[in-house]
């Protein structure tokens, strides 16, 4: 049986058979999660676990803690699915933000040392890397990557420390051995450039 992707949808207006959950758009999957459908929950977890765990492990740096953060993230998403607003960001963006907040809370609660210098370098490389193998690398994320890559090194470091590790300007200053005012300026300047790189395109807000 042939299975042409686009045209059939447009012409026929319907599918002949049921759809696999894998084909459901992100926000539809979320609607199913809201209805408490366990099959949808499995599909949801499968689709986003790499993203969620990636954010968690980047921040907490420990597999066990990261798993705990990732589990809590899905629990929250499940409980608060109805507050998700697609105009404010995609589902993976929303989940990343939840995971990020939880991870930072965990790091702060444990008074962990802010960041391992080698981890920071590795993360900086990962964030600015533009590998072709990354299949989902769309134009927007490519633009962003190059915007971060073009930052002066000290600004990029401050950006990753504050924006990903959740470090305050004071902590950035201590780590870098610079005055707090300098750290603040680096964070602000880097964020300004990032925002400008995003500005001409659409908002980060489509399914």
């Amino acid at each position, binding site marked *: 049986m042939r299975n042409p992707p686009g045209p059939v*949808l447009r012409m026929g207006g319907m599918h*002949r058979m*049921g759809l696999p959950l894998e084909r459901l758009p992100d926000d539809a999957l979320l*609607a199913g999660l809201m209805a408490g*459908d366990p*099959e949808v929950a499995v599909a949801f977890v499968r689709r986003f676990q790499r993203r969620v765990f*990636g954010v968690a492990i980047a921040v907490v740096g420990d597999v066990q803690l990261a798993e705990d953060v990732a*589990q809590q993230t899905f629990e929250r998403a499940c409980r608060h699915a109805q507050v998700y607003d*697609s*105009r404010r960001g995609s589902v993976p963006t929303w989940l990343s933000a939840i995971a990020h907040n939880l991870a930072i809370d965990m790091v702060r609660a444990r008074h962990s040392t802010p960041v391992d210098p080698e981890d920071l370098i590795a993360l900086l490389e990962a964030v600015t890397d533009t590998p072709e193998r990354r299949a989902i690398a769309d134009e927007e994320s490519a633009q962003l990557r190059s915007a971060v890559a073009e930052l002066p090194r000290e600004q990029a470091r401050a950006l990753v420390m504050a924006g990903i590790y959740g470090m305050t300007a004071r902590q950035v200053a201590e780590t870098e051995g610079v005055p707090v005012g300098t750290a603040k300026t680096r964070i602000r300047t880097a964020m300004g450039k990032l925002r400008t790189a995003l500005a001409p395109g659409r908002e980060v807000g489509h399914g």
Partner: protein
Amino acid sequence: MGECCGMTCFQLHELGAELSLGVLPARERAAAVAHLDGCARCRAEVHRLTLAGDALLSLVPGAEPPVGFEDRVMARLGPSLRPVQRLRRRRRLVLVAAAAVAALATGAGGWALGSAEGTATRTVVPAAAQTQLRSGQLMADGRVLGRVYVHGGPSPWLFMSVDADGVPGPVRCTVQRSDGSTVSVGTFPLRDGYGSWGAGYPAGPDAIAVRLLSAGGTVLATAHLPAAGG
């Protein structure tokens, strides 16, 4: 709008990046938030910075969680999911096993029984889901206004995205059932004719169509669904 609540726009501008990244110490944060309450321009600025911060997170590479993660998450989510459906799943598992036995009997697939038992919850889930989810386009006079996804079963739900230029919101969504009855699923807003929305609705005879109505009750578009089962 130079100053509001003890912080000026300039001061806010200085701290906006840290605020949007959630790394501003509590006291400064409180003052900044108070300023934002009264200053739409700074609010918009911080919103853009927040999007930039979110975008930065999207650059963090994904990572495979430890083996068994999915099962542990599902165990944790269990209480917030519908118990009815877990029962249904078990019943389906029996059906799958029966099918496997049939396959075995005809010599068509001797491996099926073993794999159905061994990875019960995993193999059953996507297979069952395929027959439960249906999709149709929302049509109005030959124009496509959006798409509807309907998931059947004991706790059915639907999701629709609408892109209807010039249609003012809010709009209402109804489901036509195979017995001729109609159930109202809910109302949702459109922004510039665009909106997406999902909700659960009571179980009953199969849905055959989904309608989008104006607030006044006029039918704006209809999506016919393929027959359930499959």
